[in-house]
Every structure is written in structure tokens, then in C-alpha cells.
């Protein structure tokens, strides 16, 4: 899987309230959630971004609540991939479960500048800064996580398993 897009840069400890404020959690509709994506971190974000763009952030991205509405909002907003120095545990798990591509790379997180063009090869785990030519290697996923991603997320994976048990 390859993605190419412009990168938007955020700092450390971007929390789930910044990604999708709780005042909008009275719905679980992905489109409605996407309309408020990153609103408390950058109120103009949804106006500026283009589908296919990427997020780059510092350490502990997605800390706070377990709300799956956070990766859902990012995915539904059209963000192709999130690159961070590290991810909060539940966000990491949720992103993989719903099939939002994420990559952990402290080096890329440090180097990427807002507005640069980036190419990501998810299988190889490489992040290429097309504006400078630099290439970064992300932390590889454990095998099981890759199986989940290949299946398209946790639900298709469990579907296959349940169907297998029945058959």
C-alpha cells in the first residue's frame, strides 16, 4: 500500500479531545465526526486539508480517551496516514482495528515540516520525504498486527474466524 500526500504537523501529546471533542460524541456517524476532526488543535484544519493528506506528530499521539471516534474521524476526514514519534496505546490498537494506517518513527516525526510532500510505503514501513529526498524506516508491526491489517481490520478478521468455526 502506498500513499502520497501533503503533511500537516502537530506537537507532542495530541489528545483525543483535540482530535474529536467530546461535545460532538453524541453521534457515531463517521461523516459528522470528520467535520470536527482536529478542531480543538487547529480550528481551520478541515478547511485547509485535502483528502489524501497526512498527519505528522510528536510523542504520545492519541492519548486520553478510548474513543474509537478519534481514528474514525481522522479516517473519514480523508487523512491517508498518521506518522508519530509514538502513539498512545489504545489509539494504536483502535487505528489498526479500524484500518487507519499509522507509522511510528521518531526520526520522521522530528524531520518532517508542514507542507512537505511525503510518500509512505506501508508494507516496507518506509516514509520518504519527497521535498528533501530523506527516507525513514518506521518501527515494524508485530506479525499479528500485520495479519489484522491485511484482513482489513479486526471485524473482517473475526468474521473469517467465526465462519471457519461454523464450517
Amino acid at each position: 500500500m502506498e500513499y502520497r500526500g501533503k503533511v500537516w504537523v502537530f506537537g507532542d501529546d495530541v489528545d483525543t479531545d483535540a482530535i474529536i471533542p467530546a461535545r460532538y460524541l453524541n453521534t457515531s456517524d463517521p461523516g459528522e465526526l470528520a467535520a470536527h476532526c482536529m478542531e480543538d488543535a487547529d480550528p481551520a484544519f478541515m478547511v485547509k486539508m485535502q483528502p489524501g493528506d497526512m498527519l505528522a506528530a510528536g510523542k504520545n499521539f492519541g492519548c486520553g480517551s478510548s474513543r474509537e471516534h478519534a481514528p474514525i474521524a481522522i479516517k473519514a476526514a480523508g487523512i491517508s496516514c498518521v506518522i508519530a514519534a509514538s502513539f498512545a496505546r489504545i489509539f494504536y490498537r483502535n487505528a489498526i482495528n479500524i484500518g487507519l494506517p499509522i507509522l511510528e518513527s521518531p526520526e520522521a516525526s522530528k524531520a518532517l515540516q508542514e507542507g512537505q510532500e511525503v510518500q509512505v510505503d506501508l508494507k516496507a514501513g518506509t516514509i520518504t520525504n519527497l521535498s528533501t529526498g530523506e527516507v525513514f524506516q518506521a518501527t515494524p508491526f508485530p506479525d499479528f498486527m500485520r495479519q489484522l491489517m491485511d484482513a482489513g481490520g479486526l471485524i473482517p478478521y473475526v468474521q473469517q474466524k467465526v465462519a471457519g468455526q461454523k464450517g
Partner: protein
Amino acid sequence: MGMTMAEKILARHAGREEVAPGDLVLARVDLVLGNDITAPVAIREFYRIGVEDVFDRERIALVPDHFVPNKDIQSAEQAKIMRDFARKFNILHYFEVGRMGVEHALLPEAGLTLPGELIIGADSHTCTYGALGAFATGVGSTDMAAAMATGEAWFKVPATIKFIYRGKLPPWVGGKDLILHTIGDIGVDGGLYKALEFTGEAIEELDMDGRFTMSNMAIEAGAKAGLIAPDATTRDYLKGRASRPYREAFSDEDACYEKVIEYDVSNLEPQVAFPHLPENARPVREAGDVILDQVIIGSCTNGRIEDMRAAARVLEGKKVHKGLRLIIIPATQAIYRQAIDEGLVHTFLDAGAAVSTPTCGPCLGGYMGILARGEKALATTNRNFVGRMGHPESEVYLSGPAVAAASAVTGRITHPEEVL
């Protein structure tokens, strides 16, 4: 090689002799939890899996508490998705308005979370049950959906960091101060992907409510779980309450810890965390002059009976400062009733506080006390992120109940000794 209690619980539930940090295991869970925000998403995913029934109607807990009693039409629709699901599958532990409470206060109170158990909840503060010696951790809605269908979940076995709290707790210092001090020390990602284990003399002397407060905030250090070994205090709490037999788990003498961190707490001061991260903790006496618009006492962190008592001790015979709103929310119906029976609610009302039926409400900026632009609140809750309690330009400070009550009297962040 010995194992930590976290490792032992995961090994048992995975049907393995032993596990080590980094192992990926498929484990049977004892309880799966969801609430009115996370369950609707999980229910949608559950139906996609295509199973005919839930794995066990007695091991799923559904608690409408975030926007309930419903704050608007949309939240009413979300709550209804959960209610309909609970009826359809005859879910035993569905808690309706009037019988509910904030989930992490309610489930232990109902005896549904027990030592040695493996519990997942689609809510990050599921780690609260670690106070009883369970391995309990927050997951997302999709994990909840899969577990409702199969009774299982995947875990990466975390390494454990051990904390030893030496010395006796000084007056006015409780579980909230210990955990704020700890997060202030290790940072909001200091426990990322780890299990924390809280030990030492100060923990042994802490009552159950104070222990819940500590484990509750393990996630605020990024941790997967925050465990305390069961002891006489735990067993006392569970007497007549435990809903099923349980088997305690303890760390071996030769268990392997990633790190051991020790604190001497005998001179610890009551703490307050400044905006906008729980790690910005400092002693209340060093807070300076922070004028407040609102004080909230409640939530899954500090809405239990000991918290109500601590607040009442400070508020007894005093008035809430005229420039400020004090909102007190007992976390469950039982705590609410006990606070009435003990006369605490009278003290609150006499002081000029608003007292509400159990709900998460303002804790996550839902309703029942939202902040306007530029307003400042002190809350006994667990998060002070930007916009957490209302307008993105409002501010939230965090403390324990005694400091919150004292601050409600003076109108600014205040050490309890100053008003008593």
C-alpha cells in the same frame, strides 16, 4: 523465572504456564464493558461479525452514564441503541437511569470486577479495577464488539513498572495526590504500553476508594493497567459484594520489573495539576493566585463516598464563594443515598452547592457544568486537556476532593488547612 501479577493474570486467561513482556496472547475475558458513547459503535460492528448471540449475557456490562439522563435528542438516540441491544440479548448487567452510576464506580460496587480477573472495557478508565487486583484495561469499540461475540481479546503482555510508596501519608494527602505526584514525575507517557504496580506502606494504608483513584489514573501516564495486590482492605470491600468466585494473583518474589521507582511520601503536599496536562502537577501551596469560576467534585476518579466525606468535612458550616459555582455529583445511586443518609448532602446544600444525580456530565465536557471562554475550573476529575470541560479557551485544574472543597470556599486554589 517469576512473574508479576499482570503477567500471571494474562497467562492464566490465555491458558499458558507463563508469559513474558512482548508476548502476544489470545485470552478469555471475565467481563466486557461499554457505555453510551462507545457501545453504539461496538454494536454496529458486532452485527457485522454475523454471530447469532453474545458470548455470555452475564459477562457484558452496559452503562449509560456519559450523556445520561439524556442531554439532547442525539444522545438519546445513542442511549437507545444500547438499551435496545441490552433487551434483545437479555444482557444481565444493563443499568438504567435511576439504577446506574459512573461505570468505574458502579461496576466494583456491584461486585462485577474481581481480583485476578481479566477485564476489558471500551473506556480508557477501565484500568480503575486494577485497584482490586484485576488486570483491567481500556480498549476501543471494535475490540469490545469482537469480545462480545467471542469472549476473547488479544493482548500484548506489557512490562511492569513497580512503584513503592514509603512512609505515612500526611493529613490532607490521599490517593489523588499520590497519583498526580507520580504522573508529574514520570509524565503523561511515562507508563506508555506498561503495567504499573502500586505497592508500599502508603498503599497498604490507603482505603479502597483512594486505591480506585490511583488505578483510575494509570491511563493518564499512558499505562495499560495500574494494579494493587489484594489484601485485607480488598477482601473487606468484596465481602457480600463479589458476584462470583475469584482467584487472587500476586507478583512473585523474583518477578522481573522493567523499573522500580520509590517515593517517600511522608512530606508530600496536596497536589494540583495545571492546564493542560495531568503531568503539570505541583503542591497546592505553590499554585499562586488562581481565581476559579467553577469547582466540580465527582467522576470515576473522585466521586465515591470517601470523596463526599472529605468534601463535607471541609464545607461543614461554610459557604461557597459568591463568585463561583460548586457542582457535586455522587458517582452512583448508592453513594448518593449514603451521602444523604450521612447528612453530607445537607452540608453541600447548606453551603450553596448544586448536587446532581450520577452522570459523567461535565467531566468530559458533556453537560451539567460546561465552561465558557476564559473560565477556570478546579475538578476532581482526571483530565485537563484543552477543551475538556467546555470552550477550547477555558482551563481545567485537577485536585483531590478536600482541595476542591476548600477552593470552592475561598474562590481560588486553596490548601484545606487555610479554611479549617
